[in-house]
């Protein structure tokens, strides 16, 4: 653990100095809220099972925040550290690789949490967001979703030959996934065939789980999502450890 806390604190400061991550995790979801909430409002409708557009979209947009940090920030920053020799230098200190990667996870988890909190507060104030779930349950689903997507991000960083490649692969996965998983466009708006296809995307399960927990579903109603995400997490961590390179 030596070094983990200091490294996390420094990495957090670095992330806050860098405007990009803040824009994507905080500003962009709020913009989605203002635009879509402004256009469609939050009136309950049968289309969304008796909930409003904002009610079902806030947990889904949380999935968007998770995808942004996992596929883009995490993969790119780890690959950049490796490419530029930051990891090489850290390797010669007593800090263990778990602490270096753990600091990245802690910081991005924090950023995701900030993004989600601000989104929820704004949606509550502006559109009277409804919440019928259990806060701890939602936090648990949020953590499980974040960590399994991060595991994919670490794997990407490990296999990408360069930071540029990590960025390209991240984008290729990111864009189809955010549009097909229900993270931006509600799943209800898609045809059955696309919805079936979307089930191969891990992010779909993050969105489905969070939307369910948000309206008070029990964990038992989402065993598929939990199984898929836990599997992605375990396999992702194992593969990431296997492909990890210092340089």
């Amino acid at each position, binding site marked *: 653990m030596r070094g983990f806390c200091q490294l996390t604190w420094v*990495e957090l400061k*670095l992330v806050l*100095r860098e405007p990009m991550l803040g824009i994507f995790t905080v500003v962009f979801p709020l913009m989605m809220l203002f635009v879509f909430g402004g256009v469609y409002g939050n009136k309950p409708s049968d289309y969304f099972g008796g909930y409003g557009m904002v009610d079902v979209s806030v947990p889904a947009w949380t999935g968007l925040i998770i995808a942004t940090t996992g596929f883009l920030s995490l993969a790119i920053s780890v690959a950049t550290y490796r490419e*530029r*020799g930051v990891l*090489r*230098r850290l390797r*010669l200190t007593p800090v263990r690789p778990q602490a270096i990667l753990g600091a990245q996870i802690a910081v991005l988890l924090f950023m995701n949490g900030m993004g989600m909190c601000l989104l929820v507060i704004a949606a509550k104030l502006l559109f009277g967001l409804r919440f019928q779930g259990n806060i701890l349950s939602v936090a648990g689903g949020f953590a499980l979703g974040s960590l399994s997507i991060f595991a994919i991000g670490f794997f990407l960083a490990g296999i990408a030959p360069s930071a540029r490649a990590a960025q390209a692969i991240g984008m290729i996965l990111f864009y189809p996934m955010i549009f097909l998983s229900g993270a931006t466009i509600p799943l209800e708006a898609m045809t059955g065939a696309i919805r079936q296809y979307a089930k191969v995307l891990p992010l779909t399960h993050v969105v489905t789980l969070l939307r369910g927990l948000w309206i008070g579903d029990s964990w038992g109603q989402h065993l598929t999502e939990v199984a898929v995400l836990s599997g992605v997490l375990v396999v992702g961590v194992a593969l990431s450890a296997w492909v990890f390179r210092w340089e």
Partner: protein
Amino acid sequence: MEGKSVVEVQDLRKTYGSLVAVDGVSFQVREGEIFGMVGPNGAGKTTIIECIEGLRRPDGGTLRVLGLDPQREGRALQPFMGVQLQESALQDRIRVWEAVDLFARFYRRAVEWGPLLEQLGLSEARNTAFAKLSGGQKQRLFVALALVNDPDLVFLDELTTGLDPQARRGVWDLIGSIRNRGKTVFLTTHFMEEAERLCDRVAIIDHGRIVALDSPEGLIRNIGAESRVVFIAAAGFDPGTLQGLGSVSRVEVIGDRVIVSGREDRLIVDVVNALNGRGWRFRDFRTEQPTLEDVFLALTGRAMRE
């Protein structure tokens, strides 16, 4: 008196595909000395130093650093060594003080980083982000990071490459002061002048082998190169004045410039005495000693800067 060995290298080998980067290298670094490896780019210096640091796995040979194996016991070794790498970087937006503070906290034993930054001339830049530092400041920051854990053994790989001459001299003073604190310094450089100025002992590396290892003076003495005396003589100078002297092997006159070559320590005294004795006036008198550049040329048949 010879100190005990802090680095022992025995028949080290490393190949990259078909390229033999290090081809059976053996040497020892003694406690408290500044040991240098010099040679052209691509000679294998960085591979050797990175094997010793534990960053690369040798294909053959044995390595002991402070009595430990850097591959298997690297973790035990880390608190006692400080490293400046030829290729590395820090996070772009990390500030100088944050970097040294962070690295200091990685270790159980660490020095106060305030005075360290002061000594390295980085106090003014303590709030500057890494990406905004000049090349010299980055190098000095890496030296600070290499010293922050108060190591016994410091590795410096091509520390002054890319620095202007003034910054380079500053770094030289710094390396001297590291040694004066009782630490052992292991450095690589492709500047012969740097090795000559700094190192107690120098290993000359070429094509992955050590071609010579001695003190700079010893290396120069061993190739038996001639010293030269150069001066501007008054018109009508007769080279015969000097040709008969026992310490002189050759006299060349180019315009009003006279170049006298010879091998013996008496050369300078003999030349000055002979000129004075005959009443010849001369000016701009200077001597040229052989350097490590000449040693490299003599040993490899090639100039360093090819």
